């Protein structure tokens, strides 16, 4: 069974009198357990495709099914998909609440989904990304960029998703820190059944991580390897 099945995906919006077509007739399939890469320059439409899969971009047309469920445009993800699909963002600072402690940031998804043993699960999640429990009392601004990104990954993994969406997860980081994050993602994949979709402008990162990749240019898929 495929985890993601997209056909004929189109996205356009109106800017003044012009119609801007950002995704044109994109079709792709991602299989169970794959690491799938979307590569392209800025403005190629790769992040838009990812945001549609995450249910963050609602204005599209075509056919999209996630984990066997057909999703509809203009509707947010429903039910179990909200747990089973998680995302890690490019700028961890912008995606972590600046005045909440790390512990609170990580507890929130568990509370929202009515999970028991919140404290133990947060400690486990922190350990998985290489932190001790003491970091839970810190605020995001007290962490380095790489540490924040590890928190972003911990948060995404807390609900045990089947599909993890990674939007330029290491573009804001030093190469040395990038290596630590990519290793973490590789190790996580060895310990549980999970599918990754990785978006990056960096061909080397995609080549290192991905089993299969498509390249996008001006909204279209131009090559597949």
């Amino acid at each position, binding site marked *: 069974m495929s985890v993601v099945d997209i056909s004929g995906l189109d996205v356009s919006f109106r800017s003044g009198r012009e119609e801007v077509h950002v995704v044109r007739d994109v079709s792709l399939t991602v299989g169970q357990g794959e690491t799938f890469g979307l590569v392209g*320059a*800025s403005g190629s439409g790769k992040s838009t495709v990812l945001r549609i899969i995450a249910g963050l971009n609602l204005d599209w047309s075509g056919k999209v099914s996630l984990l066997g469920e057909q999703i509809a445009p203009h509707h947010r993800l429903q039910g179990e998909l909200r747990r089973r699909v998680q995302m890690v963002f490019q700028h961890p600072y912008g995606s972590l609440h600046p005045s909440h402690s790390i512990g609170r940031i990580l507890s929130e998804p568990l509370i929202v989904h009515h999970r028991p043993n919140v404290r133990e699960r947060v400690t486990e999640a922190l350990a998985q990304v290489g932190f001790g429990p003491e970091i839970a009392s810190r605020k995001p601004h007290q962490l380095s*960029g790489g540490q924040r990104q590890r928190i972003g990954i911990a948060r995404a993994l807390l609900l045990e998703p089947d599909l993890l969406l990674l939007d330029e997860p290491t573009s804001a980081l*030093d*190469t*040395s*820190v*990038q*290596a*630590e994050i*990519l*290793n973490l993602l*590789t*190790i996580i994949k060895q310990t549980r059944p999970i599918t990754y979709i990785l978006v990056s*402008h*960096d*061909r*080397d*990162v995609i*080549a*290192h*991580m991905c089993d299969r990749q498509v390249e996008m240019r001006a909204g279209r898929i131009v090559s597949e390897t």
Partner: protein
Amino acid sequence: MTDLVGVENLTVGFKTAEGGRFTAVNGLSFAMGAEKLGIVGESGSGKTMTALTLAGLAPQAAEITADRLEVAGEDLRRFKARDWPKFRGSVVGLIMQDPRSALNPSLIVGRQVEEALRFHPRFGRSERRDRVLSALEAVGLPNPKTLAGLYPHQLSGGMGQRVMIATALVNEPKLLIADEPTSALDEALREQVLELLVSLVESRGMGLILISHDLVQVARHCDRALVMYRGRLVDQGRAADLPNSTHPYTATLWACRPSAATHGQLLPTLDRTVIEASL
């Protein structure tokens, strides 16, 4: 021997809110002539603060000490606030990372490039205009006359970066400091802009300090390289020899880059305790 840049025991520190002290640059010494010098290191290693200090642009709160701090024979330690504007532009040109934030959004390109010349009233208006147009042409921008009338938001990232290079070079400085000049650009543009920068520097006999986190870029385009870690100079040598460095920090920075060849493997990571111990 007269060095273009001579730095001995440069330390740049800040007082922290908790009453402590943060040392951004710690006892840095180096000298360079009209050559291409790369400074590499992770973020927070002090490479940008070194560049800003040489251009007199370190934050006001910075406490700067040095046994020697000279550019083109001028002792920067004696500079008063009014000495810097004359020095910048004519002796040192600076190119920053992001053209979108370094260019004035409300000024047309022509005025912006010309501004550097107006500060140094050697030329009349028509000569200034000629120099602006030839500077825009030298950085490979098409139709300099039309372009000079555009605002920064009408330019692409690559064009914006070329305008910045033109602005930095229009006054023919002796030293060009480029701080991550291509990091904000798409991959395909990076090499182009860097090759342009290097050829302009070479043809004018200038010195270049290229600050970059990209070791491959420095190895390819520079003569020599300094490697910084937490404010200290930990390794240096010929830029082309960066891949063969035996220093654990440099060697890991080089080896930790992902590629198709590393697919499915774990990448080497920095063992910071080993590096700290070697300082």
